């Protein structure tokens, strides 16, 4: 910084700012520039008066127009809600088994259901719906209580094993710690582990224990019973894992997985939407009596054109 002086070459006053010996001249501004500057000042003033602008401790000034982005969002949400009212109404009244014949409604339901799922269900079943130990994987084709869209909706509506909803699905596996000896449980664990490999459920000492203690719920063929939510023990899916420790613990104490009844928090349309979403995740079952989807696809190398040609 140095004193202001008149630059002899240009005859212009300097601002007094100086960097590395280079001085800044105090040239006047172009007039249009100045007026643009004043105009922006006036604009800013008017803006501050009309719109929310000055932050206060909890809030901000409201602005004379009463406008706010939140108000805009609320209005937009209301608008979307109103535009979807029809869809929601028909979703509530439609027979869920026939949902996949109505493409527009199905796509509405799965989209809305996805949002419901991520908000309410992902905490237990995971955002990818792959579940965890004790929380069913909703992507596979194993369903404890049935996998048709109506079955799923019922489960969502009333929950599993909860005392608040008299219509909730209920079953309970007892803990066998008091009933069976330690060695008996160990034998049973080894036996159960071998079931998916094709072991006869009733064979040997394990088979006898199974017959006496387990078959009433899981079935003589260990195939499970959906009316009781008893899992199929011969398939590859283990809700609680199939390690020796886990199975031992499971048989000793008896599992007790609870799902809340969502009809308390979700509207019927939302329940149905999320059921449609979960049903569509890849494991959903068609209504009984309907033929399974034909998903066969050949290799294009040996595929006869025309086989799959769309109409």
């Amino acid at each position, binding site marked *: 910084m140095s004193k202001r002086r008149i630059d002899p070459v240009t005859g212009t006053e300097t601002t007094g700012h100086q960097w590395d010996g280079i001085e800044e001249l105090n040239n006047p501004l172009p007039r*249009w520039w100045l007026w643009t500057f004043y105009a922006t000042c006036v604009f800013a003033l008017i803006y501050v008066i009309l719109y929310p602008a000055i932050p206060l401790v909890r809030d901000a000034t409201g602005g004379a127009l009463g406008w706010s982005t939140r108000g805009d969002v609320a209005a937009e949400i209301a608008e979307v809600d109103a535009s979807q009212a029809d869809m929601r109404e028909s979703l509530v009244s439609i027979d869920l088994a026939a949902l996949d014949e109505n493409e527009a409604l199905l796509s509405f339901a799965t989209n809305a259901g996805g949002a419901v799922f991520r908000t309410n269900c992902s905490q237990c079943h995971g955002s990818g719906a*792959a579940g965890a130990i004790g929380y069913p*994987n909703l992507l596979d084709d194993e369903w404890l209580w049935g996998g048709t869209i109506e079955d799923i909706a019922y489960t969502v509506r009333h929950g599993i094993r909860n005392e608040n909803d008299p219509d909730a699905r209920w079953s309970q596996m007892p803990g066998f710690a008091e009933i069976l000896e330690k060695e008996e449980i160990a034998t049973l664990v080894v036996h159960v582990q071998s079931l998916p490999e094709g072991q006869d459920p009733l064979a040997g000492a394990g088979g006898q224990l199974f017959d006496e203690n387990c078959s009433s719920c899981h079935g003589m063929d260990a195939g499970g019973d959906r009316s009781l939510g008893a899992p199929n023990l011969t398939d590859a899916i283990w809700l609680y894992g199939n390690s020796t420790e886990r199975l031992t613990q499971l048989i000793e104490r008896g599992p007790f997985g609870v799902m809340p009844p969502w009809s308390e928090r979700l509207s019927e349309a939302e329940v149905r939407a999320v059921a449609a979403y979960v049903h*569509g995740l890849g*494991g959903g079952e068609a209504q009984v009596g309907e033929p399974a989807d034909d998903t066969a*696809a050949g*290799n*294009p190398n040996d595929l006869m054109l025309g086989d799959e040609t769309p109409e």
Partner: protein
Amino acid sequence: MSDQPLYVSRIPIFPRRVSGSYRTLKWWMMGLTLAIYYLTPWLRWDRGPNMPDQAVLIDLVNRRFYFFWIDIWPHEFYFVAGLLVMAGLGLFLFTAALGRVWCGYTCPQTVWTDLFLVVERWVQGDRNARMKLHNAPWTARKMRLKGTTWAIWLLIGLATGGAWVFYFTDAPTLARDLVTFQAPGMAWFTIAILTFTTFVFGGFMREQVCIYMCPWPRIQAAMMDEGTLTVAYRDWRGEPRGKGLRRREAAADLRVAGPLVGGRSPLIPMPGVPNTTTGARLETAGQDTRPPGDCIDCNACVTVCPMGIDIRDGQQMACITCALCIDACDQVMEKIGRPRGLIDYVALSDAPREAAGGAPIPAWRHAVRPRNLIYFGIWAGIGIGLVFALFVRPEIEMTVAPVRNPTFVTLADGSVRNAYDVRLRNKNGEARAFLLSPSMGTAADVSIESRPGSVVRVPADAQERVRVYLTAPADSEMAREAASDARLWVEDLAGGARAHVDTTFNGREN
């Protein structure tokens, strides 16, 4: 504070008409750029039914960019990005080689200002007449002349704004809607803004836009070096300048070299150096014993300059290298029988050499130098890359994104299933069906979520996203191993074209 005013109003500039080779080049550039701008939206290009037939169309609503036979989808935006990078590098190249030629010849601000000047000159006459009219009181005649000028400017502005909107929608349709007042509000709004800015920038702000608003003059200082060809005044040849041909002739054989001050003629004002102030020049001009230079101080170069500067003061930020002063001075040189080129495209590095009497270095040697070649190389490389990318663009476009949440699912029968988000794009004018299938020899089986079969139908000029499942049987190697290669084939059932995408399959070991 001193009594400095807070602001200054613009000092109007009245460039004189000039003719010459650079002016001719400028006319051609002006015609070419204006023709491209106004006519492009009206070119038609047949793309088949249901597709726009406008050759150049930026379809923001449907997110497509059509450029003759090329259509660009949002995922191919790298083409546009590549073109922008090329435009940037091209600007570097031209600036490094020729200074602000972009500003002087092709910048819209220059082109439209030039066009407005033509109108102004046509209505009000050339420099002297315009100056007289400007300083005259507001009479009916002045109002009529100024009013006519402004009205024509406004019409040009309107045409400019009007042409812009045609790039974004079908031009004939929009033109009809504009005439019948049915065009969308956005179109009117855009036209209004562009009309206003063209009118004000081209008619009233002119060089102020270049000097105060445009960042490019600031950037160019960093882009140019001493090898760059710019418009400059050969002061070693022109000084001492003076009027009067007879005096020049009288002194013609006086060949006494005057002392150079700091390598320059003492007649260029230099702060702190005695005898170089403007006053000193006038005083000594008559008694200068050196032979007079070629400049006869006729001011022709100053009066034609659209930026209102005197190029004889040396290089300055405001100069847009439009070379009009070269044309003006060359005419003068011709008249007084001196060689052309007192004002010329020269490089800073040439100055000492030429001042010492060396021969000028030909212009092409300045253009072809490593820095420019490197810029050109990168520029051309990107261009070739883009053209190459254009030709290898697949006819069938499928992207396959493996779903990672979860990486795999075990099914009840022990088989392992992986999910993929598959996008299929149909760039044709009619709906197409695509058949998905796994590679031959892989154990996996392909199916599509909530759809029977493995055929995906994609509407015309659209893309479809489906979730595709690959399922490997329980006892297969794919189901066991942590990761194995998988290939997904897609076949266009209408044309028979096939394509594939490689991806991975996660097994139980994962």
